[in-house]
């Protein structure tokens, strides 16, 4: 099955992006596909490579980048939400790209399920 994922919350403040990541990993482990994760609202902060969490904590941003590389997951950040929050290409972590909301609707149309993680 193909799962599209929508992340609406930033890292650390809220568990949504952790849950989204864990869902994606679990789905991939069971042989499903995760063609795209779309980051919207404060979720765009998941793409900010300037983050430096403490050594003994999980690195949420790097975790997404590694997932994208390992499984060719398309990590898309909403341009309007990103601009509003100062998230730009020059601070984008590897594996992420900035594009429009059409990419969210597209994955909603094409995937078998679209799963939202938010407040």
């Amino acid at each position, binding site marked *: 099955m193909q799962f599209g994922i929508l992340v609406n919350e930033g890292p650390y403040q809220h568990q949504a992006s952790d849950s989204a990541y864990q869902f994606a990993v679990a789905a991939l482990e069971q042989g499903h596909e995760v063609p795209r994760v779309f980051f919207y609202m404060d979720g765009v902060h998941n793409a900010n490579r300037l983050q430096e969490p403490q050594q003994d904590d999980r690195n949420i941003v790097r975790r997404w980048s590694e997932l994208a590389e390992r499984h*060719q997951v398309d990590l898309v950040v909403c341009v309007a939400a990103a601009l509003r929050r100062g998230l730009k290409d020059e601070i984008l972590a590897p594996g992420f790209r900035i594009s429009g909301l059409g990419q969210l609707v597209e*994955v909603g149309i094409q995937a078998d399920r679209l799963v939202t993680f938010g407040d």
Partner: protein
Amino acid sequence: MSEAMDLEQEGDIKRFMFVNRKAPHGSIYALEALEVVLIAAAFDQDVSLAFLDDGVFQLRQDQNAKAIDMKNFAPTFRALEDYDVEKLYVERESLAERGLTEDELIVPVEVVDRARMGALMAEQDVVLSF
């Protein structure tokens, strides 16, 4: 990645329901949800909106957000008709719990009870909750 997401289904129309659960101000959920609604409509999808919990306040007429320096985006709901988005469902219980009535809303809606709302959600292909 786009080759993996084959575009052969491009002509497909899916039923998208946007579930609005939060007040219009106090957080950005309502405003940014509405932006997705407009894009989904531009993709010619079968779009509907559901309003429940504090989300029913989004449709309250005569809002004035000037004092908190926010944009009153409620009039945008009136423009949805131009995008062929005409299915707006409002949960009866949520209205009643907040002392609101249908005639206080900015656009014509279909008021449905909680059980009917659940059934409508079950009919959808994609449910996005904000």
